[in-house]
């Protein structure tokens, strides 16, 4: 397995392994270190207006996910974003989403369900115990990060509405308001942004609804107040600022696939052997690192999710 690749400082292959993410917690960058790093970087970057303290999330349960990974600094996670509603450049969302209104906020969960209903965001925050999940995040553009998300399995929310057996797929929709998102007109993709998962992908324990990162509520540019995180798929599948979730019978349309079907498939599982038509997916640049790393099949979560695609042609169903 390629996880045995020698890296400066440590070697994943040397670690005791139960699952491919189970590594001694001592290898995770200690919180005090990343916090002091943040303080230092923060004082260097000090953007006017960015100083407003983010709201802390309480009672977060630590999990074993992502042990051994070095966290991508908070500043990078929150200033290098793709959120086309707020502009197509990476630094646009941090600038333009500053006044995005995320309260009041409701999420409609409907479709093939026995008890479809609307949830208030504050209710969702209390729906299930909050967990910290440190996940690798691989963008289709060829860069990656390691992000300490806060959230809980999407399954917890879906169970609330009691999906019918006819629910084969889940369709997600991002909030859209051209008044709050004037730059969306130039992005070149249709809105509202929509995404979708197969039901088994949506119910998978790795799939989470994220409500925060680095112990705080989600910054607006990262998809506040709640977003999806599917760590074995390219980042654009992890839809932001969700307002509607529909359980449906058929495979729903997805935004990047609508914009360019040849380049962005419905599944979009991270796969080093299936190139994007315009660039190779064999390697990735982990933000903050000089050399590129090998990209891992299913972003390294193969042990957990490969069985979902048993017998499927991953090239055809890219």
């Amino acid at each position, binding site marked *: 397995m390629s996880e045995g690749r020698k890296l400066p400082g440590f070697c994943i292959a040397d670690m005791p392994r139960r699952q491919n993410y189970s590594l001694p917690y001592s290898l995770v960058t200690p919180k005090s270190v990343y916090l002091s790093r943040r303080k230092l970087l923060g004082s260097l970057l000090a953007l006017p207006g960015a100083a407003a303290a983010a709201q802390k999330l309480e009672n977060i349960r630590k999990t074993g996910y992502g042990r051994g990974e070095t966290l991508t600094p908070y*500043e*990078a996670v929150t*200033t*290098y974003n793709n959120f*086309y509603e707020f502009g*197509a450049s*990476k*630094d646009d969302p941090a600038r333009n989403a500053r006044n995005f209104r995320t309260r009041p906020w409701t999420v409609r969960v409907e479709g093939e369900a026995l008890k479809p209903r609307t949830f208030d965001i504050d209710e969702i925050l209390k729906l299930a115990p909050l967990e910290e999940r440190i996940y690798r995040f691989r963008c289709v*553009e060829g*860069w990656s990060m390691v992000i300490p998300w806060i959230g809980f399995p999407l399954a917890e929310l879906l169970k609330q509405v009691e999906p019918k057996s006819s629910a084969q797929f889940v369709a997600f929709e991002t909030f859209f308001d051209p008044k709050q998102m004037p730059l969306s007109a*130039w*992005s*070149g*993709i249709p809105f509202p942004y929509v995404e979708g998962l197969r039901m088994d992908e949506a119910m998978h324990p790795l799939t989470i609804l994220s409500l925060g990162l680095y112990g705080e509520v989600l910054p607006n540019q990262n998809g506040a107040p709640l977003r999806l995180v599917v760590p074995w798929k390219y980042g654009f599948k992890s839809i932001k600022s969700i307002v509607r979730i529909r359980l449906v019978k058929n495979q729903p349309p997805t935004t990047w696939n609508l*914009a*360019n079907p040849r380049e962005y498939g419905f599944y979009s599982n991270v796969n080093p052997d299936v*190139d994007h*038509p*315009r*660039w*190779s997916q*064999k390697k990735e*640049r982990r*933000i*903050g690192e000089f*050399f*590129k790393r090998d990209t891992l099949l299913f972003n390294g979560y193969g042990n957990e999710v490969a069985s979902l695609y048993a017998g499927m042609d991953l090239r055809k169903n890219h």
Partner: protein
Amino acid sequence: MRRLLAARPAKPALFLLCLAPALWLAAGAWRGALGVNPIERITLETGQWTLRLLAATLAVTPLRRLAGWPELIRFRRMLGLFSFFYACLHALTYVWLDQFFDWSEIARDIVKRPFITAGALSFAAMTPLAATSTRGWIARLGGRRWQRLHRLVYVAAAAGVLHFWWKVKSDIREPALYALVFAVLLLARLFIRRTAAHPHTAAPV
């Protein structure tokens, strides 16, 4: 204006001006101030300056004629060579910082990926122009042949814009702007050529 263009310090001043973006990038890289993904930033900016300086090079002739500043010709070679300089930095960034000299992967990229094919073509078209930019080469080739060879600059410009256009994911405004600038410059040249060929039709008598 014409006196300013003819002045002795004008050339070294332009030299420093053209060098400034490279120095700025180098300083930014040194201070770690190129943002979250510095290599992406360097790639983008060296590519942009290649196109900008190529546009400046192609603007010399129309401006000489239409604005009546014949002195501009003094700067054309320098502008063209600086465009090539940024193209070299851009290509070096790709070969070194992006591919780490993995030549088989680079060859595959050039063959398989249209946007890289276009970029490589643009670079290949610029190379002989830079190599034959000296007086000696003009004499060796003869003015007419030299001029014909240097029409490759249009190939470099078109392929360069296409390279940028095909690279962009969905917001095509910036490459479209470069395409527009090059189109205007080309039309200006056609206009000049026509008025030069038929001076009586264009000049009011």
